[in-house]
């Protein structure tokens, strides 16, 4: 990125609250002049904290915020050429609309062109670029009036000068808040979920208006929202955040089409996420079937590597039974206006699909996906990943195994009853049977044994690599056609039949996105 074009850059910014809670962790970002940047993420991901540090309400615990190359991280907010549109408008209730908008203007200082600065000998004082410097003056009343009028015009509320804040609707107050910020001609405008309190129709309208305003004014906009649709509609660049860290930076199209990891894919738009295994011949196996994968992904992944597979509902092609790659049963159908949305079950896995065609609930259809629409993302190569589901007695079922795990970690506030069901403090029971989960078993969390009675899980060693201090062994189970990768210090032979013993606490279970 061209350094001259960068208006603000955040370097290794960290924010720690109360010495223990890290809200923003090592945040690095350059924002170009005139760009519309959106910080997108679930609540508590640190996006508002980042915005507040740019505005100056919070100081970074460490790191730098550079505005036009100057470190501003310790400068108080009133000295920064940055203005904010607040989530709850924060209009001054004791002032009328005119005074609200003019509030910032009364503190503004501009060059007094009638008073060029001169040194003692009468030579003009120049800045480093050789431009004449001028004495500063306040804005005149007429100038303020003209600017307020222009700002009101811009937000379509001409003639509202004398009105009291309380007489305005939410949408109008929001416009005034925007006018109050942009009238100061800031270098950067920060918007903290400004449309959150508006109704849907109003929100859509304001999105387009804000976008148009951004185009017209040429000010850099930094926008914070948790609404992915809003982010996709308005932004030039989206910064997806989670747990105080940047997950991905990119254009809306990049973020939507090429999500970097499962979090981004899950957060942006609807998607079904599965655990897949890379196979020979540029194929990928998930949902128990082998799919052709995107030729562009060829060679990017190791053979048998476990990956996240993301399928967008609109990319699923529904065809009659047995004509797709896998068969699925439609369990629910929702009419969405332009199309139907189907929730289908492929075995125990859920796949969301969209189609303009009408299929009956409970019918079995074939599903397939074009290779270029199968998004494959790396998983850290230290664990085995499987799709699984919970069973009635709070066990997890995956890859043909029933394993126990710490179910209470998944459902805080619940405890186990004597019958082995989940109960909360109010005595309400929670039915977990069939819940979709992703299961992670570390390479170090499985032990090999040659005693066939050591466990119910058996397999054949199909591959073994020596990695300096241990062997990485791949075991294949024929019954469920799943592979397990295990780190072991012992030497085994390819073709050995072994038992797999999962260590206590070795099964990590996560619920799948929201459903």
């Amino acid at each position, binding site marked *: 990125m061209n350094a001259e074009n960068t208006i603000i850059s955040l370097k290794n910014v960290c924010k720690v609250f109360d010495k223990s809670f890290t809200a923003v962790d090592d945040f690095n970002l350059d924002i170009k002049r005139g760009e519309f940047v959106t910080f997108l993420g679930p609540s508590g991901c640190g996006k508002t904290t980042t915005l507040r540090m740019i505005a100056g*309400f919070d100081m970074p615990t460490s790191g730098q915020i550079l505005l036009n190359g100057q470190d501003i991280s310790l400068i108080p907010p009133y000295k920064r050429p940055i203005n904010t549109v607040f989530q709850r408008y924060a209009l*001054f209730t004791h002032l009328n609309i005119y005074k609200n908008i003019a*509030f910032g203007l009364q*503190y503004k200082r501009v060059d007094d062109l009638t008073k060029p600065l001169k040194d003692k000998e009468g030579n003009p004082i120049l800045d480093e670029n050789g431009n004449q410097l001028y004495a500063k003056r306040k804005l005149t009343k007429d100038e303020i009036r003209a600017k307020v009028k222009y700002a009101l015009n811009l937000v379509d509320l001409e003639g509202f000068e004398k009105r009291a804040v309380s007489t305005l609707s939410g949408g109008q107050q929001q416009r005034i808040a925007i006018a109050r910020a942009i009238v100061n001609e800031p270098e950067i405008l920060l918007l903290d979920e400004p449309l959150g309190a508006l109704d849907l129709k109003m929100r859509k309208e304001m999105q387009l208006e804000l976008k148009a305003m951004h185009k017209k004014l040429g000010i850099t906009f930094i926008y914070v929202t948790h609404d992915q649709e809003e982010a996709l509609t308005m932004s030039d660049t989206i910064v997806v955040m989670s747990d105080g860290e940047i997950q991905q930076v990119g254009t809306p199209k990049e973020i939507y089409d090429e999500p970097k990891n499962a979090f981004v894919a899950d957060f942006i738009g609807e998607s079904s996420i599965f655990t897949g295994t890379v196979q020979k011949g540029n194929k990928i196996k998930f949902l128990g079937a082998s799919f052709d994968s995107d030729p562009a992904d060829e060679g990017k992944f190791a053979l048998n590597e476990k990956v996240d597979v993301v399928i967008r509902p609109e990319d699923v092609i529904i065809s009659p039974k047995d004509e797709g790659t896998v068969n699925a049963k439609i369990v629910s159908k929702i009419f969405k206006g332009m199309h139907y949305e189907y929730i289908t079950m492929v075995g125990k896995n859920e796949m969301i699909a969209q189609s303009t065609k009408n299929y009956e609930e409970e019918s079995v259809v074939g599903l397939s996906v074009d290779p270029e629409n199968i998004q494959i993302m790396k998983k850290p190569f230290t664990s085995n990943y499987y799709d699984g589901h919970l069973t009635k007695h709070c066990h997890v079922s995956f890859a043909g195994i029933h394993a126990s795990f710490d179910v209470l970690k998944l459902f805080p506030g619940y405890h186990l009853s004597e019958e082995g069901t989940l109960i909360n403090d109010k005595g309400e029971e929670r039915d977990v049977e069939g819940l979709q989960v992703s299961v992670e078993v570390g390479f170090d969390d499985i032990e090999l044994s040659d005693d066939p009675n050591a466990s119910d899980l058996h397999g054949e060693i199909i591959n073994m690599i020596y990695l300096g201090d241990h062997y990485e062994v791949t075991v294949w189970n024929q019954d469920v056609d799943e592979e397990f990768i295990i780190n072991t210090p012992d030497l085994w032979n390819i073709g050995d039949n072994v038992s797999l013993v999962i260590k206590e606490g070795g099964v990590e279970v996560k619920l799948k996105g929201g459903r």
Partner: protein
Amino acid sequence: MEATRALPKNKGVMRENRKWLCMPYGVFLVLFIILPILLIFCYAFSDADGHFTLNNFIDVFSPDSSGTTFKVIGQSLGVAALTTVICILIAYPIAYILANSKFNKNAVLVYLFLLPMWINFVIRTVATKQLLIFFGLDPAMHPWICSIIGMVYNYLPFAILPLYNTMLKLDKSQIEAAADLGASPVQVFFKTIVPMTVPGIVSAATMTFMPTMSSYVITDALSGRTIKLIGGQIEHQFLHSQLNVGSVYAIIMLALIGLSVVFENFFSEKKKGAR
């Protein structure tokens, strides 16, 4: 059929009955508020024999005694105004600090400031007098300073409480917005925090101004009886069996309190209008 028709009728009867619930309050209102005021007016407009006369008012404002009357009113207003201003000046920063969770994590400090309120004020005043003498401030020598110190000490909690309550509800985002728009900390204070706390200032002012006007026990003890408040004047008249003249003073005091209520309403109306 019968039962359903009977239901609304029953409800109506119940509503009729409910009206009687306000009876105790009505009795209280008549006995302790309306009747005494009527009595005061009767006494003020009658002579010792019970005949109607305006002489009591003429006496109070006659050339011989109008000097004392106006002095008493002036001193009452003066003490009240001074106490109110000083109380608010002291209470404002205290309330701000108390309401800020950064300094006052569990609101215990608030009780520390309200603690004196739970001790009888006569005892407090006697104690204050001894304390002042101990520090070398003799009430007889410095009547005004000592009286104001006593008054401020007694009425400070009444100023802190309403201010504290308003400041708890202060809209922090408006303060941030002002800073964001270029106002320095001092400008933020005068342009947003003060206007936002006007309701608290007004009620703090009324809570101190009205009672101080007539708190003669404090001035009597702490000024060596040189400062006379209107409350003291009423007591003096009544103790000397001058019920009629005393009632005139009572009416004057009512009028002054009425005026300050009008004043307060004026400010809170103005505040509402700006919203």
